């Protein structure tokens, strides 16, 4: 199959604009009004555009893809050829993105992710909207059929049953999916609007969308403002003679900037998550969102690695939370677009937990907090941080712009409540099927890891932690979020407790995966034979 013919002009234009612009601006600036040189720059720019168009035509002509019964085959490449075969049962996510222009032309971009490698495994830019929907649907169906076939064989040792399920005639879907799934898997594909298949799990109302924008304020954005301010402030201080007025101006400026950042982040969120809907189609979760650029992605539940509930301070205050579901393809926030791929951006806390349990049934948990001495450690740490700020303030006041730096000393006593909050928002719970960890006092993240998804268990102790006999336990999964260090971690546990936790988690993992038959109780000697 070829890409959509309109993808040639769309790709060429989006690429050529940047190219030609760079040549034109650079060339014109360098030629400094010399007519010959300026003309040369224009010619080069035109040539660049032609080259891009030629390349895109060749790309289109040499791009070929095919969805077979069990794989997605892609042959591509202008200068060096590449033929790639992606087994469907290894596919993690299939995402369809439609930018504003693509929507006007009826096109869509398809990204297919598997667990391996860093980048997107297959990127189809662009196919028609119907073709994108067909790909998304058929990948789901065929993968589902494969998986059903496999378990059927394992259960009933009847390969015929597996084949029957593979054709989708028996429709062995969970009842929750409703009759719509049977309709969807009749093999004959009809381009029904994507929004109408499956069971609607969640829809973000306009009011909640607005709330989400306002509540999901990310303090990290402020750090950018602070970095920017360090450039502006010194020149401001020189210009304003009266130090008190200067201070007022700075304070007002900071306030305005902060409000501005908040509003901008709110607007960005609203644009990103406009019209958010989450549906369950068979064994997949499927979301769509976006005001200008529509994103439509699948999250296969059979590939689920972790489930996390995230609440920042504001959300906690008003009883809201967001839900993130992680697969090995990519994590929320690491998606190709860089947007936050929350399964639910914002909903009342109880609803979030209901849905989380629907996706991955986990029991009530009772988090145990780090030992009391950890809190003392946090007090010291925050006090040290506050003292650093005071020292920096003193230096700025002394050398750059004079202001009452000693007012910053008021920050130091705040270390005590801050430490208490940090302590109260860290914890861990392990039961037969799951490990639940929690951390983060501004943006609290509660991560649920099913035992059968645990890859390795890592205990780590920095020199400071060694002094206090505290250990952090990382429960690593194949989820790509763990790479950025934001995976499931039980921070600052008592040394022996951490050992016990690590042993228990490993034992339970071995049992759930079927390597060991019974859970062990302490001791390194295992009598249970390895499963064969």
């Amino acid at each position, binding site marked *: 199959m070829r890409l959509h013919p309109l993808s040639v002009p769309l790709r060429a234009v989006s690429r050529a604009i940047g190219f030609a612009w760079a040549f034109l601006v650079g060339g014109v600036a360098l030629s400094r009004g010399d007519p010959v040189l300026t003309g040369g720059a224009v010619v080069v720019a035109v040539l660049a555009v032609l080259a891009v168009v030629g390349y895109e035509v060749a790309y289109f002509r040499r791009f070929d893809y095919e969805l077979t019964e069990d794989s997605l085959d892609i042959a591509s490449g202008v200068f060096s050829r590449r033929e790639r075969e992606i087994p469907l049962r290894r596919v993690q996510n299939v995402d369809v993105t439609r930018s504003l222009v693509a929507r006007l032309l009826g096109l869509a971009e398809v990204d297919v992710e598997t667990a391996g490698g860093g980048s997107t495994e297959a990127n189809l830019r662009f196919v028609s909207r119907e073709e994108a929907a067909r790909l998304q649907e058929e990948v789901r169906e065929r993968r589902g059929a494969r998986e059903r076939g496999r378990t059927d064989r394992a259960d009933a040792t009847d390969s015929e049953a597996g084949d029957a399920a593979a054709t989708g005639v028996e429709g062995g879907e969970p009842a929750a999916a409703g009759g719509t799934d049977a309709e969807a898997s009749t093999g004959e594909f009809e381009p029904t609007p994507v929004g109408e298949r499956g069971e609607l799990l969640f829809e973000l109302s306009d009011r909640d969308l607005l709330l989400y924008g306002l509540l999901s304020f990310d303090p990290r954005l402020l750090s950018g403002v602070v970095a920017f301010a360090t450039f502006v402030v010194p020149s401001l201080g020189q210009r304003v003679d009266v130090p008190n007025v200067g201070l007022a101006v700075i304070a007002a400026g900071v306030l305005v900037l902060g409000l501005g950042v908040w509003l901008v982040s709110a607007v960005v969120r609203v644009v990103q998550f406009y019209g958010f809907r989450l549906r369950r189609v068979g064994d997949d979760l499927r979301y769509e969102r976006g005001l200008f650029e529509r994103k439509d992605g699948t999250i296969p539940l059979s590939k689920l690695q972790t489930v996390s509930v995230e609440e920042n301070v504001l959300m906690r205050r008003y009883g809201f939370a967001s839900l993130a579901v992680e697969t090995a393809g990519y994590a929320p926030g690491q998606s190709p677009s860089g947007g936050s791929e929350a399964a639910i951006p914002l909903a009342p806390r109880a609803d979030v937990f209901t849905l989380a349990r629907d996706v991955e049934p986990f029991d009530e948990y009772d988090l145990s907090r780090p030992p009391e001495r950890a809190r003392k450690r946090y007090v010291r740490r925050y006090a040290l941080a506050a003292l650093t700020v005071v020292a920096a303030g003193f230096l700025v006041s002394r050398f750059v712009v004079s202001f009452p730096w000693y007012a910053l000393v008021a920050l130091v006593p705040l270390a005590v409540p801050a430490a208490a909050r940090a302590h109260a928002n860290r914890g861990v719970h392990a039961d037969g099927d799951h490990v639940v960890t929690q951390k983060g006092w501004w943006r609290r993240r509660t991560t649920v890891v099913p035992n059968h998804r645990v890859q390795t268990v*890592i205990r*780590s102790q*920095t*020199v400071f932690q060694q002094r206090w006999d505290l250990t952090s336990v990382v429960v*690593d999964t*194949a989820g790509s979020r*763990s790479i950025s260090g934001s995976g499931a971690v039980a921070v600052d546990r008592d040394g022996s407790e951490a050992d016990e936790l690590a042993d228990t988690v490993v034992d339970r993992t071995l049992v759930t*995966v*079927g390597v060991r038959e019974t859970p062990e109780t302490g001791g390194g000697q*295992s009598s249970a034979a390895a499963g064969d």
Partner: protein
Amino acid sequence: MERLDGKVVVVWLWRVLVFAVVLAVAAGVAVTVLDPGVSRLVVAPAVFGVVALLGTLHALLRYRIWRFDVREDTLYIERGVLVRVRTTVPYVRVQHVDSRRGPLERVLGLGRVVVYTAGSRGADVAIPGLAAARVDDVQETLRRLAIESEPEDGEGDAV
């Protein structure tokens, strides 16, 4: 609990030496260019001395702390000077096992085993400084154990 071959310290010390030389040269160049009034003949040897001393200390401590254990169902590794790390890898999670031997390692008759899992920190699991015969042995054992612990129904699929 098994320890590494003592000769691995030579490999580490060699790296420390290279690193110290590079830093000393860089410091010397910086002093020459910036000219802060200190002779580069003082700065470069000083930088070399400090880096070499700290590096040697680190290498020795690292060797003292490094431990691993090929257990029945898991591979256990203990390492790290500043951050003490203890990793447990169930064999069922092992994707593949590499053995590697660099030029210096070959001269010393050493090698290392690298164990990959689907987990994000997979590449972390490497056992350096094993005697050549032991490398093959460990790799073979891990490979066998990884295959043996594979459940038949595919339930253990990592991802």
